């Protein structure tokens, strides 16, 4: 710790590391966030990278960012605005300065702010004259040159040396927030186990950055963020995609079924397939198909053959899977379809987040084709909802669409490792082996669920298919009355899932006038806005939907308790329209953003205050 600098204790901090996509900002950010989590803070992070793998160096299009929000209190979002922006070049400054708090700090690599880079970023002259930085503490640090100086005798080429500059930046920020460096060092040791020179170089630069910050007079103080009050347990850091994959593996283990994933890579969903592909040790079978249609069709085949079958995709892929989802509806086979939503339509904004696939999930198929639709709401509860999606699919012999989004998929947070014993059992509706005269479409009268007979089982040979089925026997039927009956049965079967889902809950003031309504991945921002607005003395409540079709059974009752209903979502109002359809008796107000970005708490607070008033 510095001799002169004073230490100030603060509640929470958001730091944004930004630079060229080759500058290693994701790594610097991840190391910082893991260190903070290990230290005992609550943490939430969000990466923001360009769609192009290597956009031209130094341009806005090539800027890669990583925001870490950590605190002594509960942290529900990666933070809208940051306290510190690390800008490794002028483009990073230009792309991110709008996210710096009015009293924030900018640390930039002075060596990269040369005429060429300034021009590439689209500035005419000195960026700090062109941008309004009033109130912001701007710290110029010759990061590139100091990195070179630090490693001049180490015996690495220039390129490899400069690659270490992200660690110099990390060192600076680590001092500023009083973070230990051990975690980063042990990471180097693991990562570069066979390249001791790189371990040495990265470690040295990290420490030199740390001491540089301590020595320069620029920082008058450094800050301490005490550990948060967190529930006891063993923790790890997890993002939404990994959590989805793990939740499905947990369900397979609990149900004692083989997990099969048929999928086709697509941002931002690919991480799920990658995670599952790595888990051969858990006997997961992954099939990287030739397209999304084959992805879901292999999964349907696997489901017919008795696996817990899943397919993972994003909006454009869901569009391709539509017809096959109908096949799973008709054949009444268990299937989980994960849609990690991104900006649309068409290819849209592949790396950005959005909630605009809701209607597609609910209705984007030919015929009356009901499926269960649900949505996870935090990176770590992707685990729980993936587990529940599998449970519902199996127990109700139905396709289930699980919606997450780009924000949840890539956002990370600490996760208290759950005990699988605390998760509900999964009862597989297999045909009892001694069943006589089994009928494929005979149903449980209560749940309307048929039973599952698996190829290889003697005496249960049967044919399923996409043509309309005769109730009970499951043979092909064109009988008009039967089609009507089956249409109702399929609908009612999904409706009956409502009995197995938890009631909707309210956070905040039960006696408020205004109920904020959210669904899926916006929970962290909505609850943060709620907390802040209440702290300012207002009464307000929030409810977040995770089950969308069917809706929780107390939905109507909850909605009826409040005078004003404000539906907030990242689209043009799909959930508001859906609620209007389901419960037309209530008036709905809407707050929508559709910029490919999560909500900001600031915007939400303004919207809430506005709606409280009128």
């Amino acid at each position: 710790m510095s001799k002169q600098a004073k230490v100030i204790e603060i509640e929470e901090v958001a730091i944004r590391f930004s630079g060229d996509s080759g500058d290693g900002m994701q790594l610097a950010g991840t190391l910082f966030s893991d260190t903070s989590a290990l230290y005992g803070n609550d943490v939430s992070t969000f990466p923001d990278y360009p769609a192009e793998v290597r956009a031209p160096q130094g341009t806005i299009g090539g800027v890669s960012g990583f925001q870490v929000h950590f605190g002594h209190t509960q942290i529900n979002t990666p933070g809208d605005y940051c306290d510190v922006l690390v800008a490794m070049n002028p483009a990073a400054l230009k792309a991110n300065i709008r996210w710096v708090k009015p009293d924030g700090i900018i640390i930039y690599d002075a060596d990269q702010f040369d005429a060429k880079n300034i021009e590439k970023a689209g500035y005419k002259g000195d960026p700090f004259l062109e941008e309004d930085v009033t109130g912001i503490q701007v710290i110029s640090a010759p990061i590139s040159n100091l990195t070179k100086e630090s490693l001049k005798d180490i015996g690495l080429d220039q390129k490899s040396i400069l690659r270490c500059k992200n660690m110099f930046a990390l060192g600076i920020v680590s001092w500023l927030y009083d973070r230990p460096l051990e975690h980063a060092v042990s990471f180097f040791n693991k990562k570069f186990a066979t390249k001791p020179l790189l371990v040495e170089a990265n470690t040295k630069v990290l420490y030199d950055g740390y001491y540089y910050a301590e020595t320069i007079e620029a920082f008058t103080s450094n800050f301490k963020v005490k550990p948060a009050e967190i529930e006891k347990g063993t923790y790890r850091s997890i993002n939404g995609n990994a959590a989805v994959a793990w939740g499905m593996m947990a369900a397979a283990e609990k149900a004692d079924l083989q997990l099969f994933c048929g999928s086709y890579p697509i941002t931002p969903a690919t991480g799920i397939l990658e995670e599952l592909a790595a888990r051969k040790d858990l006997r997961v079978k992954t099939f990287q198909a030739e397209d999304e249609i084959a992805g879901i069709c292999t999964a349907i085949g696997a489901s017919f053959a008795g696996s817990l079958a899943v397919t993972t995709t994003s909006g454009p892929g869901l569009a391709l899977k539509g017809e096959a989802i109908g096949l799973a509806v008709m054949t009444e086979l268990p299937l989980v379809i994960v849609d990690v939503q991104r900006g649309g339509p068409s290819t849209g904004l592949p790396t950005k987040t959005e909630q605009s696939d809701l209607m597609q999930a609910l209705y984007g198929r030919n015929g009356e084709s009901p499926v269960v639709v649900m949505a996870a709401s935090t990176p770590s509860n992707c685990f729980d909802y993936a587990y529940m999606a599998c449970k519902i699919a199996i127990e109700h012999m139905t396709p289930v669409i699980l919606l997450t989004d780009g924000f949840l998929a890539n956002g990370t947070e600490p996760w208290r490792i759950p005990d699988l014993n605390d998760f509900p059992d999964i009862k597989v509706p297999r045909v009892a082996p001694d069943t006589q005269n089994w009928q494929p479409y005979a149903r449980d009268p209560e749940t309307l669920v048929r039973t599952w007979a698996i190829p290889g089982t003697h005496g249960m040979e049967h044919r399923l298919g996409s043509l309309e089925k005769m109730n009970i026997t499951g043979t092909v039927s064109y009988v008009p009355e039967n089609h009507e009956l089956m249409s109702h049965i399929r609908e009612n079967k999904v409706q009956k899932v409502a009995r197995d889902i938890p009631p909707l809950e309210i956070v905040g003031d039960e006696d408020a006038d205004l109920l904020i309504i959210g669904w899926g991945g916006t929970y962290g921002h909505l609850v943060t806005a709620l907390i802040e607005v209440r702290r300012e003395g207002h009464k307000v409540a929030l409810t977040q939907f995770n089950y969308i079709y069917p809706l929780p059974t107390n939905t109507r009752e909850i909605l009826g308790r409040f005078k004003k209903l404000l539906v907030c979502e990242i689209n043009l109002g799909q959930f508001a329209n859906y609620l209007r359809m389901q419960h037309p008796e209530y008036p709905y107000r809407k707050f929508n953003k559709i910029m490919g970005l999560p909500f900001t708490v600031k915007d939400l607070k303004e919207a809430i205050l506005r709606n409280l008033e009128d």
Partner: protein
Amino acid sequence: MQQLKPEDFKSDQMVRWCAGCGDHAILSSVLKALPQIGYKHEDVVFVSGIGCSSRFPYYVNTYGFHGIHGRAMAVASGVKTSNPNLCVWIITGDGDGLAIGGNHFIHLVRRDIDVNLILFNNRIYGLTKGQYSPTSKQGSVTKTSPYGTIEQPFKPGGITIGANGTFFARTIDSTPKISTEILLEAAKHKGTSITEVLQNCVIYNDQTFGDITDRDNRDDRIIMLKHGEPMIFGKNQDKGLLMKDNELHVVHLGENGISEKDLLVHDAHTEFAGIHLLLANMDYPKYPVALGVIRACEAPKSYDVKMEEQIEVIHEKSKIHTIHDLMYSGSTWEVK
């Protein structure tokens, strides 16, 4: 195991193909082959797409799955990968397998999943009542080509071999005994087997193969290929195939001093695809049309087997065997 008979595989469903449709004969060839394949009844699965031909699974009383148009190959890939112990058959049409499902077809073949595909090639869309298909001859007059088609047809053998296929055979609906023999070979093959059946659609494309199937001339217009035997054909067994200047030639035995020893001997097992491609693509009138097992080369391990093996190896090596192990692996920390 008790010996099963063809009737044991017949379902109680009424067969709904038109009278005279080639599909009936293919069904009976399959029913004859099934008891000889050696799988238990409950371990056999038929998967199809959509089309007249794709109704097939309803007529066999094993497990069956009648999917959606073009996707039988993908559904079957999932069935077999999920449970490699099953004996999986794909039933598809020229439209189902080569138009809407063309992409799945080539990828199935490329992966070499151990399934057996029967391609009912009637060169027409039967179920939708007579539009041209990807195998319709150029110039075909159909409901959607009243002035004749202007597109080149696909040759299923060429596609299969082009996609690195390890097994391709051809038969005709009207030669059910040959069909049964070929299907038994197909079933034995470890890898994807493609069997093209030239099938007559009496309603929308009657006699499309008439020039090679008519009783009087067919022996002169088709050649039955048998592994290890010289390529001889003709009513009088007096014609043969030989290779000269990188091209196949039809020759007459006894003419120009040509004798049996000059003829090509069929080697279905060679890896070399060039000759198989030439044989598979032969078309009347320049050549006889080849029937039989044209290519059946020693397949490397099939996809489904390799997947299981990889899982075993990794499972053995890894310390992670439950989700609990996984969740506690890597970087974790304790909050007390």
